[in-house]
């Protein structure tokens, strides 16, 4: 264990705490720092929004300071294998958290200790033993509104695949984004929404071949997908709903069609071996409470996991016909278990398919 060989910030802290008279000022400062919680986050705008709406109010309420750090899935796994538990909470895609869970790197989520949030209010689809969703978003059919005015866009993935009726370049997710859109390929090929999993990989790639001639670029980062759609490099695409709606709010001529959307989730995991477990649980609990979810996700254009917060969600995320989020009324959930078991197989098939 690397942590036992080198003095970490926290072991130094323990040493300082035994000598309060010798260095009272240092002790004071370090005592304040003891209330720090290190959280892995995606960084960027994500943190800017969350700092204002969650981290700062949480600190005001509890005295615990959130220290966001960047780390990729690979880095988290490597840190775990090296026996380092410097990160207390992992805030990441639910598929990445599942990978960490399978590697044995996580603590179970102690829902019983929640006080801010009633666990029964949390969307059961994202309430798992080793992780809890923090917000929900979706793969949606994004379109550029100068090419297809609202109402004239493809209404289904079958129509998206119809490159004669709906001409123009389009984009889909690359393997490098984590998961290509095999599900949409099956929907376009006539598979009903509740029969997608387990994915027939061969059939999905055959279907993808039909739309491939109209795809100049498969996107690997959310930023690239939104930029291509806004700049009209493509006129249609399978994009993350948050990207489309943040771009639209910023004035770009883009919109989302929610029919047959694929539900995705951002989630929290608790690192095994964290010395701040109680504080970590308190932070997760706090950020899932209805008002915090409402305040935070209004700015981030994502759907709350706390069903009591639906009333505070932005109007464009709610289906006016049912008053429920679009994910509930028109979506199907991405099966992260299937992906965890088949990602390598799909990655190999993806490379072969591109090389054809």
């Amino acid at each position, binding site marked *: 264990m690397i942590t036992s060989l080198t003095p970490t910030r926290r072991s130094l802290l323990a040493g300082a705490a035994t000598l309060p008279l010798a260095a009272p000022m240092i002790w004071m400062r370090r005592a304040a720092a003891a209330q720090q919680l290190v959280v892995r986050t995606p960084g960027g705008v994500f943190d800017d929004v969350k700092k204002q709406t969650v981290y700062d109010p949480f600190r005001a309420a509890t005295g615990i300071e959130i220290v966001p750090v960047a780390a990729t*899935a*690979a880095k988290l796994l490597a840190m775990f294998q090296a026996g380092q538990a410097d990160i207390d909470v992992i805030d990441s895609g639910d598929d990445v958290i599942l990978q960490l869970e399978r590697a044995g790197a996580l603590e179970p989520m102690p829902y019983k200790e929640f006080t801010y949030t009633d666990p029964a209010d949390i969307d059961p689809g994202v309430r798992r033993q080793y992780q809890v969703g923090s917000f929900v978003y979706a793969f949606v059919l994004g379109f550029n509104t100068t090419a297809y005015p609202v109402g004239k866009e493809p209404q289904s993935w079958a129509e998206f695949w119809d490159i004669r009726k709906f001409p123009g370049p389009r984009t889909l997710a690359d*393997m*490098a984004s984590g998961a290509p859109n095999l599900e949409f390929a099956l929907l376009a090929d006539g598979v009903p929404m509740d029969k997608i999993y387990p994915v027939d990989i061969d059939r999905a790639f055959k279907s993808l071949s039909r739309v491939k001639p109209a*795809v100049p*670029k498969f996107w690997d980062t959310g930023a690239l997908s939104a930029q291509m759609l806004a700049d009209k490099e493509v006129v249609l695409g399978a994009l993350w709903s948050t990207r489309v709606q943040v771009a639209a709010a910023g004035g770009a001529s883009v919109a989302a069609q929610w029919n047959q959307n694929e539900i995705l989730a951002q989630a929290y995991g608790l690192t095994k071996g964290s010395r701040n477990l109680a504080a970590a649980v308190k932070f997760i609990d706090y950020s899932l409470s209805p008002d915090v979810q409402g305040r935070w996700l209004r700015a981030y254009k994502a759907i709350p996991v706390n069903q009591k917060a639906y009333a505070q969600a932005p109007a464009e995320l709610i289906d006016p016909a049912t008053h429920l989020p679009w994910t509930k009324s028109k979506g199907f959930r991405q099966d992260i278990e299937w992906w965890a078991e088949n990602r390598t197989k799909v*990655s*190999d098939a993806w*490379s072969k398919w591109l*090389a054809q």
Partner: protein
Amino acid sequence: MLMLPAFAMLAFVFVLPLAWFFTQALFAEGGIQQIASVIASRAVLQAILATNWISLLVTACVLLAGYPIAYYLANRRGLRFTLVVFCIIVPYFTSIIVRTYSWMVLLGRAGVINRLLQSAGLIEAPLPLLYNKLGIVIGMTYVLLPYMVLTLFATMKSIDRNLLLAASGLGAGGFAVFWRVYLPLSRHGILSGALIVFILSIGFFITPALMGGPSDVMVAMLIERSVEITLDWKSAAVMSLFLLAVTLVLYAVYYRITDLRRLMGA
């Protein structure tokens, strides 16, 4: 003797982790089959071919673009020299992502270049300048240009101008002086510049990932996917080993040519 701490430092922070990484990845259970399956994979082979081909194209383009610039620099002083050096060096310190995105703005379907050509009536439909090999080559050529220019410049500065005068004096025309005297004298710069650019090219990731098309997959992109997405670190190790081997071989050639010991003044 004085170099010892430096070498120890290098060994500790660079060679040791690298060796550890490769042994961990390769000599764990099933390591040999893993190597075999990665090498036999068509996708990896295609990526290796594409990587070498793109790197060759880029090296040629950088040389063609860089030679005249370096020549200009070697024969100028004062403001014009400073201005061109400034234009070459400043982008060198700018983030590669920013530079790549700028090219995407220029080359896109609705980008500056296509819009100019269309409004001038020269083309009907936008030209496919981005999301293909052309896009990658343009982007990488731009990013790698400073390496070539600076290497060539160093060589050209050391060319004895009297040799050129002597050639002219003996009746050689302008082209003959360049072709038979100047060019051969600058070949060390050409070779080392080309090797540096090629070595850097085969490990490129950001520019081909952003500017390439669906089938333009380079080895570094496959490594990234294995490390981050499928968490298949053994395959990543095998592919990295390949890149490292190619780099070391080319570096050995480079070392022979430039005679680093002389450059370091030892």
